[in-house]
């Protein structure tokens, strides 16, 4: 059991959720309440990681963020660290890769809020941020939970992007999914089995939570 890899994965997943939930709320709310000509295109772009092979994303991140590229150099000048082969690079990859897992449930949740409620909030003199904070956020609890859990669980399982952008550096980019791969190659099937079982149980719990959350929303939530 590679606890360093497990901790690293948990940290990566938590950081991804922390960045994606606030960003996802704003993006999803905008998409749920606005109509504009290129909207299907924008929505498709945010959903792209669902079907994009992880190695394709890994390839483009290597090309775009490598030590010799403009963003790569700029980041190194700013922080003294490279983006590829570091936790920072993994986080960038992870945030991009999880966009649909955060945005889709949140957008469905915002769309499910009855327009009457939003109109009432506006009539009561609430500004848009006030309405978000006091009316809408409490109503999309289940969506937030689903987005958070899906993003977290999906980050734990990332493999292709992590291997390509991160290498497999202990304590820095060797996540639990990589550690399982490494243990199998090191002929340690017991260690690999233990970590796999842990991820299996966690994934079952995670997907269970999201199903319960979406069921509750369907039975009690807005738009019921």
């Amino acid at each position, binding site marked *: 059991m590679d606890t360093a890899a497990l901790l690293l994965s948990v*940290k990566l997943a*938590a*950081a991804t959720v*922390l960045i994606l*939930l*606030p960003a996802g709320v704003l993006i999803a709310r905008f998409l749920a309440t606005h109509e504009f000509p290129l909207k299907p295109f924008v929505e498709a772009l945010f959903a792209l990681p669902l079907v994009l092979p992880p190695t394709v994303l890994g390839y483009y991140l*290597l090309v775009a963020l*490598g*030590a*010799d590229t403009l963003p790569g150099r700029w980041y190194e000048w700013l922080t*003294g*660290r*490279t983006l*590829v*082969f*570091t*936790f920072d690079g993994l986080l960038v990859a992870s945030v991009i890769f999880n966009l649909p897992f955060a945005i889709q449930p949140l957008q469905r949740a915002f769309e499910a809020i*009855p327009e*009457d*409620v939003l109109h*009432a909030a506006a009539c009561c003199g609430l500004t848009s941020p006030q309405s978000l*904070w*006091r*009316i809408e*956020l*409490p*109503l999309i*609890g289940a969506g*937030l939970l689903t987005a958070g859990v899906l993003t977290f669980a999906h980050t734990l399982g990332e493999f292709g992007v992590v291997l390509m952008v991160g*290498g*497999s*550096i*202990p*304590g*820095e980019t*060797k996540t639990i999914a990589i550690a399982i791969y*490494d243990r*199998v*190659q*090191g*002929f*340690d099937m017991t260690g690999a089995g233990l970590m796999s079982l842990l991820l299996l149980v966690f994934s079952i719990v995670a997907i269970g939570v999201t199903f319960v959350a979406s069921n509750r929303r369907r039975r*009690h*939530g*807005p738009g*019921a």
Partner: protein
Amino acid sequence: MPGLRFTAAEVRRLEGRPGSALRRTVVWLLVLGPLAGAAHAQKVGGDGAGPLIAAASDLRFALDDLAASFRRDGGGPVRIVYGSSGNFRRQIAEGAPFELFLSADESYVRALEREGRLADGGVLYGIGRLALVVPPGSSLAVDGSLAGVAAAARDGRIRRFAIANPEHAPYGRAAQEALTAVGAWVTLRPRLVLGENVAQAMQFATSGSTDGGIVALSLALAPGALGTATYAAVPEALHRPLAQRMALTRRASPEARAFYEHLQRPASRQVLKRYGFALPGE
């Protein structure tokens, strides 16, 4: 309120301010998140746990032993990443933070030296050997000369055969040369399963899902890796020598240098010899 239809659940939520727990959580996350991030940045800035070593997969067991003996001799921990030498060559060129590179093929070390990524040209630490590995139940003869493999390939008796990827794994390239030398490459080619590195090829070869494979002798000699499979060393004459070279990179810390020197001690060389490496200068 005419025109407004709230469900009972919505009324409960809006009146009971049920969002406050959620909002408290959001606030806490926003406060704690950056703090955790800062703590992490500090830890990385202050170096992790020991120098970072990139090592060819054929060293997977030998180098673990040597890292243990380094600690017994008073050295600190080292972080070893195993993989294919060609992959490491690319990663170091892209700025990966390795401090010492043990390559299974010295041409990768030479190339990095030319590109100015290394402290110096490094030293030869061993000549690698190939082994034919055959799992129990396979029809293949455990014959190092590969005559049995060539015959089985001609008769179509081999369904799957494992080697490392010749594109970027030196042992894969050597295996290709050996199979070519015995005239089995062309017939065997559609039957090959390619490991990403030689340790994965070894895992394929011993798993029982293949009829066998050609891998590193150093892995076949490792007690944990072989399992119930059997092996035979492949004659060196069948392929170009796998001259293995290691070199410190320009990022090397004093701890990395100490480990580099430890690997060159007579006792360490004996460990490498035990794992089937021929020693340079002997």
